[in-house]
């Protein structure tokens, strides 16, 4: 069994899709459908990578969780791959401002736009896990 990856997204079809993609490479996949469930899953067992949606039960649920994790000494090292259907180019001011998402102070490791290209996702996951030394 490969690395333990936690998917947090309220779109169950997407969760399933990602699950199928990841399981094709033998990653261990867990899923949660909002920030709260996600946090519970993280405290239960720290995953090697989190794939996190932005807008779930609230518009900023994903970011709220990401910041919460960054502020917790136990969790700040977990890499986060963030997904959003809000195209980066169109980002406006406010919490959904993704323009500087990978800059300093941002709680996520990488940012991807939906829809998900299976090959790209797998490459990204592999890269992150390798960089973090978790494979």
């Amino acid at each position, binding site marked *: 069994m490969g690395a333990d990856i936690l998917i947090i997204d309220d*779109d169950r*079809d*997407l969760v399933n*899709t*990602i699950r*199928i*993609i990841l399981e*094709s490479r033998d990653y261990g996949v867990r899923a949660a459908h909002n920030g709260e469930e996600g946090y519970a899953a993280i405290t239960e067992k720290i995953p090697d990578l989190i794939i996190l949606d932005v*807008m779930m039960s609230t*518009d900023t649920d994903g970011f709220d969780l990401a910041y919460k994790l960054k502020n917790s000494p136990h969790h700040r090292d977990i890499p986060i791959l963030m997904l959003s*259907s*809000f*195209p980066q*180019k*169109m980002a*406006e001011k406010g919490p*959904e401002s993704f323009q500087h998402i990978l800059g300093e102070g941002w709680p996520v490791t990488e940012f991807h736009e*939906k*829809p*998900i*290209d*299976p*090959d790209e996702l797998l490459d990204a996951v592999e890269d992150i896990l390798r960089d973090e030394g978790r494979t």
Partner: protein
Amino acid sequence: MKQGYQLIKEQLFFRKELVERAYWLINLRWVVTGAALVAGWIGHFLDLKHPIVSLTILFLFVALNNAAFSLIWRRLSAREHPEVRHYAIFAHVQITFDLLVLFCVIYLTGGISSPLLIFVIFHIILAGILLAPASCFIYAGLILLGTAGLIVLQESSILPPQPVLFQSLLFPSTQSLPNVLALYLTFASAILLTAFLVTTLKSSLRAKSRSLLAVSKELDASNTKLTALYEMIKEIELCNEFQDLIDSATRNAARIMGVKGCSIKLLDDQRKRLTFASTHGLSEDYKAKGVIDIDKSPINLKILKGSFFTIGKIQKDDYFQYPEDVRKEGIASMMCLPLRVEKMIFGVFCVYSDIEHFFGPDDVKFFSLMADLTAIAIENLKRELNKIWFLKKAAHQLRSPIGAVQSMLDLILKGYQGDVDDHQRETLTRCRKRLAVLGDVINDLLKLGLKRISTDEREYHPVDVIEILKSLEDLYRPRASENGVDMTFRVDDPLPRIMADEKMIDDLFANLVSNAIKYTPSGGTVAVTLCAETANRIRFEVADTGIGIPESEIPRLFSEFFRAENAKVFSEEGTGLGLVIVKEVVDRLKGTISVESREGEGTRFVCLLPGAKDLGMRPRTTPDER
């Protein structure tokens, strides 16, 4: 600019008269002395018996003195801050001098019987206008003393009698003493009456100008307040964040009303509680009291029913939910008004003063105007933010399922769920493409919607258009060669910058360039030119050898969801919104766009955009200037 009341003060104040008349008096003296001298000599040649030599010497002496006065005046007026006191002394000296000279002339032209005696009246009037009332009466007294002295000296023959030029009406030369006395008393009462009339009239004029001054001062004060209010509303109308707006409102309100603090409290959805949304000049402790239960706060309950509330002296405990805090905060008086739009009340606007009984009826009127305008601004912004929120939410909700379906199609297409045969692959690919177009439509609609809602030109800054086109070149060159289209870019450097934001220019360029590539068949060319049309106007041109636009369809080119018939046949992809976005951006930037096209031959879009005026031409080697 000088305030109105100051202008009126300067114009109406009698001291101005005094200063201005100082020079006028000197000029008048030249004329009168000259005229008297000429008249004296004409009289002499007509054989009148007056002592022409003495008179001439006297007039020359006056002229000499007047030259001295002229010098003094010049020195006085050359001072940077001339003192009114000096002008008053100067006026006294001149009037006294004139009076002495006049008495000499009167004596030389026949003493009290001289017809020139009547001229003393002018001195009374002059002193009455220019100097204080007391001075006027003093001059009247001096004139009477002088006249009496003349009578005594003449009657007692101490002064040698002079020939009477013409018989005076006042004191005919052959009179008995009782008659002279009676005539003198008449003369005295005329002089005093003149002094009285002049000084009374002047006092009443002064009083009137003082009240005019007071009125204009009040007008100026309210004008200043209204101007400040206008500036405040202008500032808050420009806010595009809710908190910025209410913070700006409280800050400005406290400043304009001249008070220590101000707050805006907003009602919750249940209309049960008020929460401090913004405060200015109040302590954190006070603010931290936070929520006010309106059922426990009779004041706020009253305000929320629509009436205003002022309290001149805070002492009674039962008014407030937290009376100790009000006192601790140093609030001595306060005024609160409802924030409402039409009949809908949604909050309370308060100002707090550390002075008791600070707010008068005028303040209530003015503050309610301010509260109404603030409420409208708040409501407008709320509506705008709601629209933006709705658009973004709607776009997200529409895009999410598309993204999910696209992701699932990719899963199948890429063989993650088993093999796919060619027929299935073709159908699934078409599905994937149609979904992509749907996604584009949603993106374009959102862009357009957001552009139409927010007119925030404050965030415009000088944009380097060359930089943007360069990055688009990298993006579109591969796509062009994929389609077998030859693409050329001609960019002049430097070019004027444009006041905009990068996204707008990016949308504008990208839409025109991608359209050209999309509608140009393999083997064709797309030529992109970016150059200076004039010193402060750039020209962006995209010319292709593509399918062109039918002439009949050109007028509808920039309308929503329009796609030319031949375009639909040529390519399925296209939202019908690209050119609408282009037009929107061009309009926003106050530019122009024109199109020339011939079906089957090609299309040329020419877009002219005004440069950032004050910036002019700049080499783009300094991108960090802003």
